[in-house]
């Protein structure tokens, strides 16, 4: 049973990582990264690493995306349409 769960989560992680790379808009990428963070946390939990899962949840799905969003907001606010993140 647990093997099947691990396989599923692993494939989801791979898919989500691809999405995070392919998504070229940083604001949306931040969201994808936050989903990746949750998936990784889930993976770590099924791999019997609750400590790591907990910190991945705190860092990967909250802190890092938050910093990216703040960064995007600052750059957008500068109001030059050109760098509006393509």
């Amino acid at each position: 049973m647990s093997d099947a769960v691990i396989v599923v989560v692993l494939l989801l992680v791979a898919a989500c990582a691809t999405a995070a790379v392919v998504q070229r808009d940083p604001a949306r990428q931040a969201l994808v990264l936050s989903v990746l963070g949750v998936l990784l946390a889930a993976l770590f939990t099924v791999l019997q690493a609750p400590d790591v899962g907990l910190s991945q949840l705190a860092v990967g799905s909250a802190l890092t995306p938050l910093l990216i969003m703040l960064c995007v907001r600052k750059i957008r606010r500068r109001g030059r349409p050109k760098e509006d993140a393509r």
Partner: protein
Amino acid sequence: MHILPYLVAAYVFVTGCYGLATSRNLIHAVGCLAVCQSATYVLLLAVGYRDGATAPVFSDIAPGSRPVVDPVVQALTLTDIVVGATVTALLLALVLQIAKRHGTVDPDELRELRG
């Protein structure tokens, strides 16, 4: 199943590198670097996994009653996660300053250092 987790880690690493090399936006590039790093977490924890084992926390199981997974890689991964978060923060701070000084975050338009 035998080597799938390792392959996923390798795939995530190479994918992150691809994103980093082709990125058109420095914020996106920093995000890709975070993806590269998540490959190292997956690899480390996959290496330390043991079939049918439980987490190495003995507050609710008696020591020796069940096999536990390798605690060392988990500690390493914890360190690694902190490193990743701080590097991301520092690089984002630099990106912010690039946006201010160059007026762009597109690496194709940064043309000051060359030759």
